[in-house]
């Protein structure tokens, strides 16, 4: 978090310098600036003061409390402690004995809403495959809030926040959006208040295949880099200019250069990640996380030194050439190097089982003598994801003052036999396994076979 703040400060200093050089020229964009466009209208739903008592608590930041107590009220966590933590009067007391409590699960890489179910052409809005760089498009303008996938992620996966990314056809795919996993009529009603934007970038096979296939640049990896570098040069020039003519795409890239917009970079191969890190240095921006980084284990030292997270599957491999060297020990070897691990889904089914994927990755490590404690593994799908989405100060862990995004599991979340029993978002009970009506059913599923069924 500290590094992120300092980069933002650096960006601000550069901007001021540019303005200083041409102080009389007014920045027309600033004139036009009002409240953020498409702002979040999400408001937490009412909740009751709640005490979860007697459960094993994983706080998301490596802490574990046996027979713990978690208190939340007014949408916020107000206390996390041992059995001796007093439960204030007026709290609903939930017996958590034999159960587990974690922060709400967070998926840093999802395409729910932009590639929704049903998977049909009419609803496929995740890749603006008309130009290799489309930093001007925003995923939130594609999100279909009625995607039933959101409901499954909540009920089966305990997912309370998620980042929706554009696809990886383009080198610069556009802006991602971070959502609260709360059913809403509008995407604005899901937007995570105050979450920073991220730019989705992609290296490797996809962009060169898509555009090479159309007989245009880039058709090679070197073409990928050339197009990216020119885009950064142009963005820098724009940033230092007067913004007389507003450019949506360059607005996004300027935000990255100023440290206001994070970079989520789809990249599989170790050698390519190293090149991307140098490109970031060349142009003065920071890569927040490499996504699908199946070869991250080969450069755990480099990732740690550059403070970049690896957002990965547990053990997907082999489905394309750049995924050929994927191994189940990826997460554990990264953890051994002290690098940041995030377990992601990129999948409407996988998002329902991020906890299970993390457990698989943990087990693979244990078999080669890398023993990552359960409490740290829970951080792979909670706090680390939040941090890499720029919302680590607000959610992702059970700490006093943070959003009461909480899952009560009916067993250890790292066991295949466990499921969410209750899920709270900002202290509001949004799923309860014991109450068939307390779960969302999307408009799409109303009146269809299986409406409201256990899924």
């Amino acid at each position, binding site marked *: 978090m500290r590094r992120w703040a300092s980069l933002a400060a650096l960006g601000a200093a550069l901007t001021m310098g540019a303005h200083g050089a041409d102080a009389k020229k007014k920045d027309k964009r600033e004139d036009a600036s009002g409240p953020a466009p498409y702002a979040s209208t999400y408001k937490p739903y009412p909740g009751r003061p709640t005490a979860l008592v007697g459960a094993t608590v994983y706080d998301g930041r490596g802490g574990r409390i046996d027979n713990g107590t978690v208190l939340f009220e007014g949408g916020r966590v107000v206390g996390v402690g041992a059995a001796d933590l007093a439960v204030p009067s007026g709290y609903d007391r939930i017996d958590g004995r034999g159960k587990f409590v974690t922060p709400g699960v967070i998926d840093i890489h999802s395409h729910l809403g932009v590639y929704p179910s049903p998977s049909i052409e009419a609803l496929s809005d995740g890749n603006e495959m008309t130009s290799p760089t489309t930093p001007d498009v925003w995923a939130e303008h594609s999100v279909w809030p009625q995607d039933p996938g959101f409901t499954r992620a909540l009920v089966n996966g305990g997912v309370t926040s998620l980042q929706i990314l554009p696809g990886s056809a383009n080198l610069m795919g556009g802006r991602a959006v971070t959502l609260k996993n709360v059913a809403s009529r509008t995407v604005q009603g899901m937007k995570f208040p105050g979450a920073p934007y991220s730019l989705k970038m992609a290296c490797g096979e996809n962009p060169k295949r898509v555009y090479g296939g159309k007989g245009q640049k880039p058709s090679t990896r070197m073409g990928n880099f050339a197009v990216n570098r020119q885009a950064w040069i142009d963005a820098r020039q724009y940033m230092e200019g007067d913004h007389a003519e507003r450019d949506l795409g360059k607005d996004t890239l300027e935000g990255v250069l100023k440290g206001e917009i994070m970079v989520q970079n789809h990249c599989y191969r170790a050698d390519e990640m190293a090149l991307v890190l140098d490109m970031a240095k060349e142009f003065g921006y920071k890569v927040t996380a490499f996504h699908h980084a199946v070869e991250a284990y*080969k450069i755990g030292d480099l990732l740690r030194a550059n403070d970049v997270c690896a957002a990965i599957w547990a053990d997907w491999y082999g489905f394309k050439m750049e995924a050929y060297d994927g191994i189940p020990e990826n997460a554990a070897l990264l953890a051994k190097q002290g690098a940041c691990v995030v377990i992601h889904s990129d999948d409407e089914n996988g998002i329902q089982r991020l906890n299970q994927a993390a457990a698989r990755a943990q087990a693979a490590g244990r078999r080669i003598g890398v023993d990552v404690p359960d409490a740290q593994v829970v951080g792979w799908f909670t706090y680390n994801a939040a941090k890499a989405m720029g919302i680590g100060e607000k959610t992702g862990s059970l700490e006093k003052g943070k959003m009461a995004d909480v899952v009560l599991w009916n067993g250890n979340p790292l066991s*295949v036999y466990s499921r969410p029993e209750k899920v709270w978002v900002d202290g509001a009970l949004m799923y309860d396994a014991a109450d068939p009506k307390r779960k969302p059913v999307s408009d799409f599923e109303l009146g269809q076979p299986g409406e409201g069924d256990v899924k």
Partner: protein
Amino acid sequence: MSRRLVLAAALAASFLAPCAAFAQDFAVTNATVATGDGGEPIANGTVLVRGGKVVAAGAGVAVPAGVQTVDGSGKWVTPGLFSAVTDLGLWDVEGVDDSNDTSADKSPFNAALDVVPALNPASEHIGVSREGGVTRASVTPFNAESIFAGQGALVDLGADPAMVVKGRAFQYVELGESGGRLAGGSRVAAHAALRNALREAREAVALQPGAQRQGDVLLTREDALALGRVIDGTQALYVGVERAADIRSVLALRAEFPKLDLVLVGATEGWLVASEIAAAQVPVITNPMHDLPASFEMLAATMSNVGRMKKAGVKVAIGMFAGSDQPRYAPQQAGNLVALGRIQGATGLSWGEALAAITSVPAEISGLGGKAGILAPGAAGDVVLWDGDPLELSSAPVAVWIDGVKQPLGNRQSRLRERYKDLDETYQPKAYAW
């Protein structure tokens, strides 16, 4: 009658013949034994394998003198996992077309396509799956430009060249939405294509040697002859279908073609027509994790599908492992069905039933009932020793035997892992660590 039948007979004779030369007699003792028969695990049990076959499994099994014993204390023993309807051995890198033999979109043939010559026992994925406890599989071709994908094979995953257990074990036809698309644009077209193909097959098989086929045919001679085995029921017909109404249409085919040996693949909405499937005695191979309306033919998808069908009396196996849905995920999927048992309103499987759904049941559906996927006298000596509850995420095989032969468990992934266990290049580049 022909060479084809002779060949089939020869294949039948060699059915499941173990590599006796390397098979060792052994017993695993003091382990928790789960035989795969649907029952609950047996504490402190023994599995005895001789001559490549299971001799006995359970409690109170005496180990004859001289038989090597493996102490299974604290461990679990199961039959090898059976991966039903998979692409194992047909690709190296799925997205690299040159290495991928799952489908052929420019071939003039469809039903005649037979995966056997393409199967590669040295495939990396065979090794990875074997390390995950998978010992046998039914490998299917995938559709390209026809509703008929071709003929699949039963294989074992032993680290030896003899991979094929039974070639031409089943024909695969795709109906429903994608079948309709392949047939020209509608389910109506798919059913017309299927009926026409079966009619042409019947005529082709009936032709006297040297006789000419009629001119108005759509299938090549090879495709028509291949489907001849489907009409008379000597070869199973695997039908890819999801929607409840489509399942009914498939079951109705029996009225016209009584000998069809049908197996439903997919059947996401099977629970809506479970009693009809059960009454028709048609087994199902499905991906149990589907719970989203991924298409309009899967609107009623739920993870309770398997449990509800099983409860209605349908024989259901977990399967359809292809691409990133790897065969080694079978235990996790089975475990998830056990987890449903504690969810109000859901229908899951008992632990024993869940294990059976990835061992004996898929073996039975594949025609290997009692011969594989089960620890019972006379079954193949496919045995997996696990370091814990085999359905749990933390568990993995510590030893795998196929036909009584102890298998190597290393693979390319383990080599990469060993190379990069540390990142020290002080004295040499990593390329020298091998």
